[in-house]
């Protein structure tokens, strides 16, 4: 996807049993953070650090969601254990469909890669970053830099 491209069709499960689609991207800048697995140590660090910049996102009129191929129940437990507030979106079934559509799936591992995809309030791609490997953590500074253009 190139910057300015419209969001593809998305269908992700929310924690409350609903569905998050590409239409939900409209109206507010949205940062989607893809992580490989709930409860893996690296993911733990990543989301705990990103939690620290939520006020910065709010000031920029943006919101953040974390996405993985874990089931909603696993994501909810993970979120509780971490003590974070970042809403979770599950790409569990069909597995990885949204991640694939956004170039954020890691085929060798059968999981989401570590990636950040930002859409503007018109559901058009603003910026994206895919890690060279799932072990690489994109710094929070990259997200804020991308939002600040």
């Amino acid at each position: 996807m190139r910057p300015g491209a419209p969001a593809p069709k998305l269908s992700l499960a929310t924690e409350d049993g609903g569905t998050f689609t590409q239409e939900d991207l409209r109206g507010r800048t949205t940062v989607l953070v893809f992580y490989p697995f709930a409860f893996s140590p690296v993911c733990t660090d990543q989301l705990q650090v990103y939690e620290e910049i939520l006020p910065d996102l709010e000031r920029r009129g943006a919101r953040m969601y974390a996405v993985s191929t874990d089931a909603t129940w696993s994501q909810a437990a993970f979120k509780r254990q971490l003590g974070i507030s970042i809403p979770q979106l599950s790409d569990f079934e069909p597995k990885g469909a949204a991640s694939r559509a956004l170039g954020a799936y890691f085929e060798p591992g059968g999981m989401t890669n570590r990636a950040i995809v930002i859409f503007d309030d018109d559901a058009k791609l603003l910026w994206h970053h895919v890690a060279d490997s799932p072990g690489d953590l994109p710094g929070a500074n990259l997200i804020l830099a991308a939002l600040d253009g």
Partner: protein
Amino acid sequence: MCGVSDLRSDDHVRGPEGAELVVVYADFTCPHCALAHARLLEREGEIRRVFRHMALKAKHPRAVPAAQAAEAAALQGAFWPFHDALYDDPGRIEDPHLWALAERLGLDVDRFDADRRTEAVAARVARDTREAVLAGAMTTPTFFRDGRPTTIIPFATSETKQRSGPLPNAGQRGRTYEQ
């Protein structure tokens, strides 16, 4: 955009002037930080070390309270003894342990307990943590040498590096820090 601020007047610094400067962003609840401290102690006198907080409230429930306690100790001139004691005995970071430590170090415990709850102390810890996050640090400890971040313990033996190296960490554009 991966640098941190230069040495500040209120930084906690140890080591001789003129020695190579290492800025350490760390957390008192983090076992890797305790290991890093032990390794850096082996080079005490050869490096100039700055300690800054990277205390994530979601990482450990005692991360921020321990950091604030260290800052309260600093207000009585005892940051480094407090720092060393916390890393020497990392299982004791609850409030009664902190009070006992303050007493053992000869601090005014009432003042210590009041200071660690002040907005100024909270702001100091938050400032350091925020700077670390905005500089791209993704875990503890993160070291900055010449403005560049690394998660490899500086000056450590290859054996130690090997143990600490696999920690997956933040970097620029999805790469790990300089190796």
